[in-house]
């Protein structure tokens, strides 16, 4: 465990609104800061990963003027960066790379990208791989609706309440108050979430992630680099990736991709959910968190509503979650998986400041990318300290 590849440098960009930025400017600043955090120099980088439009990696390599020998542009939605970390660890074990830089930059807020109310934020044209868009566009199947369908079904099958879902948003906001960079920091109550305007019922505005600009970078390196690094190594213990989709018309809405990844990731790491000290869970919407908690085995299917109550997810609770405020309050530039790993790394190093989880040894990250009610990805990553 203490011999393997590790996260050795991280950086989350402090800006949430940057009209004069481009994605590459975010990437450049984050790459430099993450390398400095790691105590490495640009010429050390021999692996490069990102997600985004086709050939984005070509532009990034030119901008950073690096010549990587290992590349990854897995693009499976917001969870992609966790997949990059997983793939980078494998590549490093195979000696195909030694120092992998994973980067992200987005001006979603300045560009007024309406993530939640659009049917599909990506470009869809005649070259699109999907014929299926035609089966969603005429019906106004916006992104938020894909999550709301899962929420409604969960409420129907298990009696989950809007108040229980709201508790997740309230928790993230309470944590955001401890993050000076967070987009929203004023406390909210369950009643505030309930009373916010409906977007796609049962999901209301405060059940939905914020939209910001932003960027981040993560450096994954071999044990040799990690041992001599500036920071305590954050070990990549295990991880799994998976896709869920319509299954030819046979999909059950509550069969989320996380069910395919959680148990395997724990088995590979030789850990149980009770070993986890903090969870970083992609909170595109409150329901995403609820279904993920169940799928990871923190509680039984259907018990997520009760599980999230009574401060269990708060700092000081049994399973502190999204300590920097999550997508619901901190930042969401479109694909936020990278930020899950960045905060987990700070927590495991013990440098998370006032939001530090005491003696954090194991962190779980789970990213959901795409549309929970339809095509989506799930990536689970278990991280630990030596």
């Amino acid at each position, binding site marked *: 465990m203490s011999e393997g590849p590790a996260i050795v440098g991280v950086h989350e960009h402090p800006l949430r609104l940057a009209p004069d930025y481009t994605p590459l400017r975010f990437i450049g600043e984050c790459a430099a800061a993450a390398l400095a955090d790691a105590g490495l120099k640009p010429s050390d980088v021999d692996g490069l990963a990102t997600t985004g439009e086709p050939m984005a990696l070509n532009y990034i390599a030119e901008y950073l003027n690096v010549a990587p020998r290992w590349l990854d542009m897995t693009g499976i939605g917001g969870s992609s960066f966790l997949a990059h970390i997983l793939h980078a660890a494998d590549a490093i074990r195979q000696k195909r790379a030694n120092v992998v830089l994973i980067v992200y930059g987005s001006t979603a807020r300045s560009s007024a990208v309406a993530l939640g109310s659009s049917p599909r934020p990506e470009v869809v044209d005649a070259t699109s791989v999907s014929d299926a*868009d035609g089966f969603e566009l005429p019906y106004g199947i916006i992104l938020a609706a894909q999550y709301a369908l899962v929420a409604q079904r969960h409420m129907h099958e298990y009696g989950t309440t809007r108040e229980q879902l709201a508790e997740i948003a309230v928790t993230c906001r309470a944590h955001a108050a401890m993050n000076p960079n967070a987009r929203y920091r004023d406390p909210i109550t369950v009643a505030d979430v309930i009373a916010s305007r409906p977007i796609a019922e049962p999901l209301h505005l405060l059940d939905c992630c914020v939209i910001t600009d932003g960027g981040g970078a993560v450096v994954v390196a071999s044990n040799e680099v990690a041992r001599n690094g500036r920071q305590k190594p954050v070990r990549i213990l295990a991880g799994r990736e998976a896709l869920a989709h319509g299954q030819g018309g046979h999909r059950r809405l509550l069969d989320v991709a996380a069910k395919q990844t959680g148990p395997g990731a724990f088995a590979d790491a030789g850990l149980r959910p009770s070993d986890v000290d903090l969870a970083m869970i992609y909170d595109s919407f409150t329901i995403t968190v609820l279904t993920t908690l169940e799928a990871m085995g923190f509680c039984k299917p259907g018990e997520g509503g009760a599980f999230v109550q009574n401060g269990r997810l708060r700092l000081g609770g049994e399973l502190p979650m999204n300590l920097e405020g999550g997508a619901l309050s901190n930042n969401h530039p479109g694909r936020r998986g990278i930020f899950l790993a960045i905060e987990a790394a700070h927590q495991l190093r013990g440098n998370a400041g006032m939001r530090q989880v005491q003696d954090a040894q194991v962190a779980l990250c789970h990213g959901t990318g795409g549309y929970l009610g339809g095509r989506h990805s799930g990536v689970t990553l278990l991280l630990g300290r030596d």
Partner: protein
Amino acid sequence: MSEKKTTGAALTPRPAPRLTSQTAGYWKAAREGWLLLGDCAACGKLSHPPQTVCPFCWTAGLGNRKASGKATLNSFTVVHQSGVPALRERLPYIVAYVELEEGICLLSNLVNCPPAEARIGMALRVLFEAITDESAAVLFEPA
């Protein structure tokens, strides 16, 4: 199904689906008042959406059959904000995850139903709303 009802004539037509060699037949059938399901002669499984390769056994040349149009509501959401201009005229509208009596689930809209009256498990029937001469939206209403 025999009624072949349509709805929404006074509104801007919904976004037209992109017609491809795999999907044009489905949309044309909808325009004529039929919901088609993929029907595999090799493995016997039904499927949706239409594609030329069976999503279960990958046999090429997938056939189709007409659905009865009887369904139940598996889940739904009342949408209050939409980035799709033609759908904005229909706000609030109900996105439905519908389970056909043949066992196939698909995304659609529940229409002719006040949002407060939508219930998971309610019985539905199919209806169609013309989009172009070559396509129609496949919708559902309370049975």
